[in-house]
């Protein structure tokens, strides 16, 4: 009797598992059957927005569905990130954001989501390092000199930041923490006005997203001391890394990534991951 009962339970369990597995597989097999919305928690027109849009053709071709981009800035991007945290976990609403919007701002703000629990990580996307830039007439000629200059002028050297928090502020703080220096943060409404003021000589330094200020460095309007990465940035190989330049460990990379709401089936996450990987293989993206 017991043996028959156990055998019955085993069959029931196996059937249940098979039904669940086939339901998930059916969702993944049919996915996507309608447009996929990518929420970018930043204003349109910025570097992240541009990067995602360069991937659209490839994503559309791989997934076989239109890709709708929804820019939802505000509150450091936490509004847009929260929209995806609360979306149905079906793969039709996903988010692409940066280290700043998805990591730093989770602690600078007090968002109504838990980044570690409310999302399924889909894919790590391309990254851009930060670098330490300065007005061109700031006395130090290299990173070691900048650190020494900051120590001599304790707290008097200014550092531009985008907003009160944000990646540039955290990067400036991190430099201070690892080198025993201190700067005075000068918050700006955006990266463009901050850069303008460095070019104009109104603020001393900035830990900027390297892509933002590359053209001004190349033009000689400002100087770049060091890239906050282990290896040199291919777009400006003449600029040393923080390890080479005397500020080891000050590593700050603004990477992009894609996320789906927690509970999105693994097969759907895998399909999205494959689509992003195909897009990254496109030379137009880098």
């Amino acid at each position, binding site marked *: 009797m017991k043996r028959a009962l156990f055998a019955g339970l085993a069959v029931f369990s196996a059937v249940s598992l098979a039904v669940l597995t086939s339901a998930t597989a059916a969702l993944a097999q049919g996915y996507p059957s309608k447009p996929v919305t990518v929420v970018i928690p930043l204003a349109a027109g910025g*570097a992240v927005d*541009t*990067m995602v849009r*360069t991937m659209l053709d490839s994503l559309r071709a791989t997934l076989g569905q239109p890709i709708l981009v929804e820019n939802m800035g505000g*509150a*450091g991007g936490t509004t847009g990130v929260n929209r995806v945290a609360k979306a149905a976990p079906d793969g039709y609403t996903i988010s692409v954001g940066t*280290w700043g919007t998805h*990591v*730093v*701002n*989770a*602690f*600078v*703000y007090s968002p109504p989501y838990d*980044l*570690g629990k409310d999302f*399924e*990580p*889909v*894919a*790590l*996307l*391309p*990254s*851009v*390092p930060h670098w330490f830039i300065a007005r061109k007439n700031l006395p130090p000629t290299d990173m070691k000199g900048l650190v020494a200059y900051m120590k001599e002028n304790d707290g008097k050297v200014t550092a531009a930041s985008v*907003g*009160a*928090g944000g990646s540039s*502020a*955290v990067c400036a*703080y*991190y430099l201070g*923490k690892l080198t025993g220096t201190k700067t005075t943060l000068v*918050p700006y409404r955006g990266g463009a006005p901050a850069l303008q003021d460095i070019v104009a000589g109104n603020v001393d330094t900035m830990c900027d997203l*390297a*892509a933002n200020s*590359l053209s001004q460095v190349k033009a000689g309007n400002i100087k770049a001391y060091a890239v906050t990465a282990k290896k040199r*940035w*291919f*777009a*400006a190989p003449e600029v040393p890394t923080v390890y080479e330049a005397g500020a080891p460990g000050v590593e700050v990379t603004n*990477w992009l*990534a894609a996320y789906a709401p927690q509970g999105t089936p693994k097969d759907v*996450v*895998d399909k999205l*991951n494959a689509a992003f*990987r195909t897009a*990254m293989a496109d030379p137009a*993206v*880098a």
Partner: protein
Amino acid sequence: MGLEIPPPEQQTPAAFAAYLKAELDKWSAVVRESGIKAQ
């Protein structure tokens, strides 16, 4: 745009999940210690 593509071994969901956890652990400590808050 000067973007750097992550190496293939970092492109899987599992590798990214591990990287994300490490980044959250690292920067939560740094940001909290810094006292930086949105205004």
